């Protein structure tokens, strides 16, 4: 990034709400059906039909509002955003304009220096999604699929508080984590359930006035958000440094070419002629309702992170990884509760071996091949010295491959750790006898050779001797 420039970014995140039926009709919201099989007369905008609000979306929006410390409006109003487009059946989109359901929220991310940074959330409003125009495979014509029309969306608008692509991604990830914690969105980015528009401008460092912004539309992966924003920042700075001017416009990111291109100029953009939708009553929310929603809120990521650090004495980084998804956090807690192993050891295994195995096989925590109970069983055997940490990895892989529980595998493979001192002493004596040269060197002051002797003993015992005991007995026997 060129020095001397400050980047200003605001994000509009569109999160599809996980209702079963649409925001204003009883049609299903399920993804992937045959075109136009999940669009009823209301979704098709037939003459005479009327929208009826799905109350579930109000509940979900209120949950989100409370989760980001925002005001949930006692009265919000649906408005019509008027424009013509083939995938917009009524010729207007029902959205919220002057009186959104959520306002004045905030959340916290880590900035480049690792400090906590507050990002303001201007508002979040409810709206219906449009349908989809299809051009591929159709000769000289376009198809319209209205299955998506009327799918509920929560549009979450940030303040222009973000200062880099990295911050933008951190913010978006945070929103993503929150909506999934709340269970109000599946956050599925491939299916378009979670996407964002980014408003980006640059200004000389220290300048008060904002630069002219460009809007990047429809960014649907964290990676694209980062790349698109970085491209756009470079483009704007280069443009201005070359004596040009940024034009206010909407741009699209082309991930194949890694560049942004203008979509349409705002000057030509529609005047949306917003006005309150007379078919829908204002949404009235009582203080009691809000309180009831607050009572039902699950523990949120930040609170869970702090609790993990305090209660389990975990490293902050590990706590952050474990709490990035509610399912992972729940898995961790279930495992920790079922084993005598130390919480940090449990964390190491979940963040380390388990995550590695899941990634390797393209699975997630919900489809893990090792349950929390099974993992707890393994960790307990490390804790009670039945097996060493090293052998535990072998057992873990066997468990992953479905060979049974930790105990069954330890038993079947005879991996039980040798803790019988006399047995270990016998092997130690044998090793000392077989390596007189090394014994002399050690006794001559070459302390590092202890590692060699431990290695020999472990080799002799097939890795099953307790390393602590081996160490202790060796040191004792090698004295003098």
């Amino acid at each position, binding site marked *: 990034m060129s020095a001397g420039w400050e980047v200003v970014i605001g994000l509009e995140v569109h999160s599809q709400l996980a209702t079963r039926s649409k925001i204003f009709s009883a049609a299903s919201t399920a993804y992937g059906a045959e075109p136009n099989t999940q669009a009823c*007369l209301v979704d098709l905008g037939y*003459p*005479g*039909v009327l929208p*009826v609000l799905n109350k579930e979306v109000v509940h979900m929006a209120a949950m989100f509002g409370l989760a980001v410390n925002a005001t949930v409006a006692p009265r919000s109003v649906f408005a019509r955003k008027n424009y013509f487009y083939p995938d917009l*059946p009524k010729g207007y989109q029902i959205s919220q304009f002057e009186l959104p359901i959520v306002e004045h929220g905030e959340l916290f991310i880590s900035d480049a220096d690792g400090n906590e940074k507050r990002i303001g959330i201007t508002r979040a409003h409810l709206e219906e999604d449009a349908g989809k125009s299809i051009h591929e495979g159709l000769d000289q014509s376009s198809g319209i699929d209205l299955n998506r029309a009327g799918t509920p969306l929560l549009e979450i608008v940030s303040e222009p508080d973000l200062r880099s692509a990295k911050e933008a991604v951190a913010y978006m990830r945070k929103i993503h984590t929150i909506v999934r914690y709340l269970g109000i969105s599946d956050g599925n980015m491939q299916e378009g359930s979670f996407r964002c528009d980014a408003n980006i401008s640059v200004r000389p460092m220290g300048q008060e006035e904002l630069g002219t912004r460009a809007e990047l539309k429809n960014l649907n992966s964290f990676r694209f958000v980062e790349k698109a924003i970085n491209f756009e920042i470079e483009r704007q700075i280069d443009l201005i440094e070359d004596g040009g001017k940024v034009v206010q416009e909407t741009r699209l990111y082309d991930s194949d070419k890694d560049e942004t291109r203008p979509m349409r100029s705002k000057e030509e953009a529609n005047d949306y*002629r917003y*006005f309150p939708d*007379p078919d829908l*009553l204002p949404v009235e929310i009582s203080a009691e309702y809000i309180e009831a929603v607050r009572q039902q809120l699950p523990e949120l990521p930040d609170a869970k992170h702090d609790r993990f650090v305090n209660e389990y004495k975990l490293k902050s980084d590990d706590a952050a990884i474990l709490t990035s998804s509610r399912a992972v956090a729940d898995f961790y807690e279930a495992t920790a509760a079922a084993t005598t192993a130390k919480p940090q050891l449990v964390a190491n295994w979940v963040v380390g071996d388990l995550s590695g195995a899941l990634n390797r096989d393209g699975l997630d925590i919900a489809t893990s091949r090792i349950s929390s109970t099974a993992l707890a069983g393994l960790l307990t055997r490390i804790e009670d010295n039945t097996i060493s940490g090293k052998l535990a990895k072998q057992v873990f892989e066997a468990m992953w491959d479905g060979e049974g529980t930790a105990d069954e595998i330890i038993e079947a493979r005879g991996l039980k750790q040798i803790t019988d001192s006399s047995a270990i002493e016998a092997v130690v004596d044998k090793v000392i006898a077989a390596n007189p040269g090394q014994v002399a060197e050690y006794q001559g002051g070459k302390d590092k050779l202890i590692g060699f002797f431990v290695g020999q003993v472990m080799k002799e015992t097939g890795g099953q001797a307790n390393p602590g005991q081996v160490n202790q007995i060796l040191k004792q026997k090698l004295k003098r």
Partner: protein
Amino acid sequence: MMDSYSKSMTELLAGLESGDFSSVELTESLLGRIATLDEKLNAFVTVTADEAMAAAQAADDARAAGNPGVLNGLPILHKDIFCTRGVKTTCGSKMLDNFISPYDATVVEKLAGAGAVVLGKTNMDEFAMGSSNETSYFGPVSNPWDLTRTPGGSSGGSAAAVAARFAPAATGTDTGGSIRQPAALTGTVGIKPTYGRVSRYGMIAFASSLDQAGVITRTAEDAARVLGVMAGFDERDSTSVDHPVPDYVAGINESVKGLKVGIVRQHFDAGLDAECGNRVKDAIAVIESLGAEAVEVDLPNIDYSVPTYYVVAPAECSSNLSRFDGVRFGHRAENADDLMDLYCRSRGEGFGDEVKRRIMTGTYVLSAGYYDAYYLKAQQVRHLIADDFKKAFADVDVIAGPTAPTPAFRLGEKVDDPITMYLNDIYTIGANLAGLPGMSVPCGFVDGLPVGLHLVGHHFEEQTLLRFAHQYQQVTDWHTTCPEGFE
């Protein structure tokens, strides 16, 4: 059977119940009347003879089986704004000339459920925009009292058909007076209930915050009968109100003694035809003779109702009519060059002049930079007008006055002068802006043309209006007079 056409629903119901005639006989006879006489009026867009005969047979069967509905076997008509499954629903427009609705409006469903037999869909001003039925794509409707004159609008076909004794009742819709003004001009009874009283589901929207379905009949008792079936909460219409529906028919027999009738001074000023004014004053005198007390009330902002309406209604219609884009249903221009061409030509060809005028007006008042000065201001004035009514109803039970400023005018007389045309609704628009129930009752003739008495009630006080109207009809016979040529 020959004279059954002039009977009220109450009388017809008695005939059906006693077995004097069947619904099939009644339906056949009225269909025959329509076939011979409607060429004079053009009151129908579609006559649903086959469906009607089947429904009449079903009604007779239900009666024979001992489970008749409350309107079992009674003929009715639907304004062509109500979606009817499997039948063309045009809204008086070329845009929907080819539209067969895949579903029934709630009103249609409820009336069918009560056993009513639908004879056809009535002509109307295009998308209910007009006061003379001259904006219909299917041609103007004539007034049975004088075929060179308008029956009013937009529910002109329904009013003309009921006046011509084609059916005892027809549904209508009223956004600024579209039930009451044609009722006045044709000597029929028309009631527009409280906003939210009747479901709007399946009723093609003109101005959503003002539209309300109602009914045109010849007697207040029949209106009470039909409204009782139409009214009630509908979960498919968020603006319908969950408020109990009283037994309207039972309520009409109570006396109006001791009730107060408010008279608005501005309603009797220079804009009102003097002879019309005299008929209305006579009617109020009759009501006083029944024991009600007339007092003057003030509606200080009522003069702003027409300009307010002509901002709010076009604004909503400009958005409501956006769905007619040639993409999914309705008229589609042929050989469009591109998407914009498809939109422009489909809408340009499909809509008539008055509809276009209102879409343009509405688009303008909602535009950036004009919204505050027009739409927002109009909404503020609307609140003031509603407050005026609220204050007035603290002192009176109904407000009475003229329904329309003149009797029926000649076809073609005002069609090129929209402002004069708009002033036809000057006395009725207030009730729509305030969401109040309004009703027109025939109260005499001027030069052989009917005049209507307008009654406005407080929210959900339809029964009070029906009671006044019924008691008035017990001592007058204007409603029993049949237009010449339709006896």
